[in-house]
């Protein structure tokens, strides 16, 4: 038990597999696209040019154009910030909520643990997307509500894992030692338990990001998230669906972006998880 925190960051002889390296590159590209989209695609993602509609991939339009002559490459690049931002925010909401629930359940008195756990279990019985849809039905569609919806929908899963991590950490010898030494409750939580849960949280967040990107795109695809003509991958997929019989590139490239980013986040997350576990 030598500081699990160090195992995450500085694993000795860090050697990524080919897949992980590739996933890393994709994530870096994604980050660049999200933060400085104009570096990769200087055009305006909303600029229409009806005369250039439905053009296939070519040097002028790498990914082709859509029904209004908008450049799909530019839209996919600019869409990264929206998809990633919503994905990160949704994951943050989910994990933030889960930390509260997990700590309350893990450290609170028995009845509180019992109550919270049952609530989480009931929520867990619903498929996550269904919870998200329910939330949107109540609040109305939109980017903000779909972000919150995905966050809420993922929270029960995280909460369960965090609770068990908290319980395990709380019964560790060093926590008992701290308690014997008369440290305050909050001090123990902040200095001993939280750091030991962080590693698991980090893995969860990376894995969850991929999931959240897919869910957010799904909601936009269903017309419940970003509204056309916004350059959002799910919305682009929905718009291209109509023309799939004749113009494959309209769905293929946004779809590829979703798959690649979700896969990359998952591969990186699993990589961290694997090393983390072997180090513990």
């Amino acid at each position, binding site marked *: 038990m030598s500081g699990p925190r160090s195992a995450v960051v500085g694993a000795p002889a860090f050697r990524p597999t080919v897949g992980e390296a590739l996933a890393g590159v994709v994530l870096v590209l994604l980050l660049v696209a999200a933060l400085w989209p104009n570096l990769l695609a200087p055009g305006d993602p909303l600029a*229409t040019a*009806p005369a250039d509609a439905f053009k296939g991939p070519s040097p002028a339009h790498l990914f082709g154009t859509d029904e209004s002559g908008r450049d799909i490459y530019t839209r996919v690049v600019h869409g990264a910030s929206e998809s990633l931002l919503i994905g990160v925010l949704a994951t943050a909401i989910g994990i933030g909520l889960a930390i509260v629930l997990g700590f309350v359940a893990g450290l609170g008195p028995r009845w509180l643990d019992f109550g919270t756990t049952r609530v989480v279990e009931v929520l867990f019985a619903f498929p996550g997307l269904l919870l998200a849809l329910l939330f949107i039905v109540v609040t109305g569609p939109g980017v903000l509500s779909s972000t919150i919806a995905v966050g809420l929908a993922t929270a029960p899963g995280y909460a369960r894992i965090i609770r068990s991590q908290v319980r395990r950490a709380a019964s560790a010898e060093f926590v008992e030692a701290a308690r014997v030494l008369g440290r305050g409750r909050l001090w123990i939580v902040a200095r001993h338990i939280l750091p030991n849960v962080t590693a698991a949280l980090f893995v969860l967040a990376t894995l969850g990001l991929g999931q959240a990107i897919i869910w957010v795109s799904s909601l936009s695809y269903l017309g419940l998230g970003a509204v*056309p003509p916004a350059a959002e991958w799910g919305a682009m997929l929905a*718009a291209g669906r*109509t023309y799939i019989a004749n113009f494959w590139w309209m769905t293929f490239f946004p779809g590829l972006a979703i798959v690649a980013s979700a896969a990359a986040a998952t591969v990186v997350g699993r990589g961290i998880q694997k090393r983390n576990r072997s180090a513990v």
Partner: protein
Amino acid sequence: MPSRRFSRSRAAVVLAAAVVLLVTACSPGGGSTSEPTGEPVTGGTLTYASGDAEPSCLDPHVGGNYPQALIATQYLESLVSLDEDGEVIPWLATEWQESDDGMAWEFTLREDVTFTDGTPFDAEAVAANIAHVQDPATASSTGYLALAKVEDVVAVDDHTVRLELSAPDSALLESLSQVWVAMESPKALERSQDENCAAPVGTGPFVVDGWERQDSVTLVRNEDYTSPPADAEGTNLPYLDSIVWRFIPDSASRYAALQSGEVQVIDNAQPDTIQSAEPDEAIEELDAPRPGAANRIELNSSKAPFDDERVREAFIRSVNVDEGIEGLFFGTAERSYSPLSSVEPLGLSLPELFTVDTDAAASLLDEAGWAERDAEGYRVKDGERLTLDFPVSTNQSIPAEQSLFEQIQADAKTAGFEIKLHPLDLSSWYGALAENDYDLVSAPYTKVGPDVLRILYHSASIEPAPSGYFANLAQVDDPAVDDLLTRASTTSNPDDRESLYEQAQRVILEGYYILPLYDQQNHFLYSSTVQGLRAMPTVSTPTFAEAWLAS
């Protein structure tokens, strides 16, 4: 026995199909299309896939929209019909006579027709139907507005009925030809609305047999069918045993289902698929532009900013829709410059009003006080941004049309208008209209004849019909327009009628209340095994009364 016969005929079908396949595979491309080949065959089930919203009621008296008309055409019939030249022809009524003062019409009815529940069709039935449409509890809108002038219905004898009017109505016969005022069994109408909605009873070639919500309606052959319209071809109609009327909202899936042979007819065909199906010998196209209004964007003149004609003109002068229509519709839709559909002989086109002129638009906006621009380039006046709310019904606007709206949004942005597109389902869309929460809106309206102008632009149509829908969405409130339209609908002189409708259209177009786009698109794709399919010359709904499946 029947099953054995069925299997034998099925074997014959397979054999014939194999032969046809072999022949077509060897024959060179080209050749004639859609010519009936050989004698009609009786029997078989046809599957129709609709992309429209599934009606919540199969009785088109209730509400009264196009999806209802599409399916009801298969089981309900009207007093009169139209032929291909637009002349009124007999259907359930054999003769009619207008009184000298135009205040009453007398119809002679067919004597050999019964509804499919056994109730005889007679003068009382006609009276019951018109009463049903006019009853506020029915919540009719299309039929209600079409029959607005009918005050009383008198059964002169069993098979003669007189309609007494509040004012002469030059559009009465055209109105009566529509399926929204079709004849239903009076006995069936006495049932609760829910029951009648689930299975309306008419005199048509098919009978509603079952309705699986969210999936399909099953229609079966009316074995005692006797009443095709005067222009119907063939004897012993209908030929088909049954029709499965499916709802497949996704256009790509609908087209794939047609290609795979899972369905034989699809509606709301997407422009790109119409184009790509053209060289395909196994798929035919039926193009039936709807009568009534052209598809257009209405500018809500009842509130700011469009209560100012200069702002309306500036908007219309700033958006270029021609390129978009060309690109999105692949040559299947032609630009319109008229409030009326191109199938309406009295339509007036004024293309010169719609030439794009961004400089003129800019100075009009300056004049109207929208001279400044904010950081995002939108025009502002007194700190308010020039924002236009545009609720879009995703059930009524096909994706190509929604894309066109996005292009209009981009064009208008350059001019300094901020258009907010709100894609909505049908009920939220009606809600937005009811709350006057829109500046731009596109709503199809189908009606036979130019009288649709009265429904769309007479100030009386700002008042909601019993269904809650009001048709004058531009909220044109102009006594001159009211007067022209009222006179046009009461005159019996065809020349006066034409001139009055022309003047009314001129005022509407020159007032920049509407931006006409194209005819209401009504494209059907169908398998070439389907023969004898035609669109009714009334409201352009396809009828399967004369259709049969070739082997």
